[in-house]
């Protein structure tokens, strides 16, 4: 396996990228990890700066939020990788922001003030993964019934459910 280039190398190689530029300018210590793989740019952002980071890339021209989702890396910590796919209609490119959330208190800031469309997506992540979003207007279950126990898409939740 070839060694993946580190954060600084990726940032240097994509110095002209608008998302990286704007994040380095207005939130210099927000990027924790950067990866460029299969023509897709992934920036891991510090958990407490996710809302500010989204606002920054939005003003840099990435105007459309495609999806918010989560990956459960159980049993490693931090466990949850909350993933945002953001598209720019003008630049015709996409950036993926990630925030790592540990399992002790799985929560982070909601980005509904930046993109109202995150509303349903964050409800889905809460419903299926149990990650809470601070400042969300209506954080209820969306796909599972209201009285459901557990969060089905977690890796320690059996595929056929608890019997």
């Amino acid at each position: 396996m070839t060694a993946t280039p580190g954060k600084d190398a990726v940032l240097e190689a994509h110095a002209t990228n608008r998302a990286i530029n704007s994040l380095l300018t207005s939130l210099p210590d927000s990027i924790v990890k950067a990866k460029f793989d299969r023509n897709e740019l992934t920036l891991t952002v510090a958990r407490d700066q996710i809302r500010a980071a989204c606002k920054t890339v939005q003003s840099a021209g990435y105007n459309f939020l495609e999806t918010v989702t989560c990956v459960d890396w159980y049993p490693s910590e931090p466990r949850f990788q909350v993933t945002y796919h953001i598209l720019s209609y003008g630049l015709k490119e996409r950036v993926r922001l990630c925030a790592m959330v540990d399992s002790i208190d799985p929560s982070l800031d909601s980005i509904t003030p930046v993109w109202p469309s995150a509303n349903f997506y964050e409800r889905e992540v809460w419903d299926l993964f149990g990650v809470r979003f601070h400042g969300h207007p209506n954080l209820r279950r969306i796909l599972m019934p209201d009285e459901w126990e557990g969060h089905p898409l977690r890796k320690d939740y059996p595929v056929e459910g608890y019997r």
Partner: protein
Amino acid sequence: MVEFVQTSTLLEPRPVEGSKDTTMVVNMGPQHPSTHGVLRLVIEIDGETVLKVVPDIGYLHTGIEKTCEAKFYQQVVPLTDRIDYLSPLTNNLVYCLAVEKLLEIEIPPRAQWIRVLLNELTRLNSHLVWLGTHALDIGAMTVFLYTFREREEILRIFEHFSGQRMMTSYFRVGGLALEPPINLFKWIQKFINILPEKIDEYQNLLTGNPIWINRLKGVGHLSAEDAIALGVTGPPARASGIDWDLRRDMPYSSYEKFQFKVPISHDCDVWARYILRLEEMRESVKICQQALDGMPEGDIKADAPKVVLPDREKMKTQMESLIYHFKIVTEGFAVPAGQVYQAVEGAHGEIGYYVVSDGTAKPYRVHMRYPGFATLQALQTMCEGRLIADVVAVIGSIDIVLGEIDR
């Protein structure tokens, strides 16, 4: 004592005592015929004016994303058909493209062109169902019978090349499942020759009809800013003046080799969405024609023996092919670790698959972004202040399929 689950939590409870209670909460669905499935809307009305619309979804949630994590990569393909059951081939396409991007394999041109051809046929299928049911909701029953006549022909074509009318599963990771039957292209040619006439026929029935015009014009206004803020994509977004089509702007599966127009409208209402989808159908016919005219020769499967099942003939005669066949079927194929997001322009908007691999033969995580899920959030903006009868027109115009919303 039986304890009932409190379902009225969707809306704020009744106004405080003493204040004048003038509004009423109406429950629409999940069995309402105009909700195209099992959508439930809790609507607060004042007289006949809609104040608030709260969608309640999840009645069709089957946990497909969870199921994917327990399947081999190739076993996920039939699951994707069942999500948006009106455009099965588009779902197959986006999943295959995502996994192919992870595997970094090249697809032969012939397979790519057949994918484009069938993908556009799927779009026509979905738009025909949309037009029929939308008109049926508004009260124009005849159109439904006409569009389903053409849709039946598309389903016959589907059955001809895949053996299934709806759940085709025809695209595989690395190419196509089978060589298409010899008279398939002739049949499609015959179909797209007559279709423009049929679209004229639908337009004759609807476009000049005063009832149709009154029910559609100016209803369900959605501005471009709201469309972007609320995550609306596809025809509803283009009817609000957003000039964005993934087929043209971020081409996949050799769409860059096709010439087609992307219809745009600035009227932002249900009428604009109706006109725009009809235009899209005409453009789809043109793309089908180009695909048929320039269909390249060659293989329909990529040269990747560890991923693509060998030909039946080779499997029976060559030891190596037999081993690969056995390995793929019993153990699946390992996909290098990584994460990709692949988006395509579906009939209702942007369909995106986010596939995470941990290096094994089963996907670690498959997330499906379907347009209906986001578009549903715009319902409040489009219906607020309008009459309750307009809710039906608006639901029809955003063309929802509950299978894709609940997954």
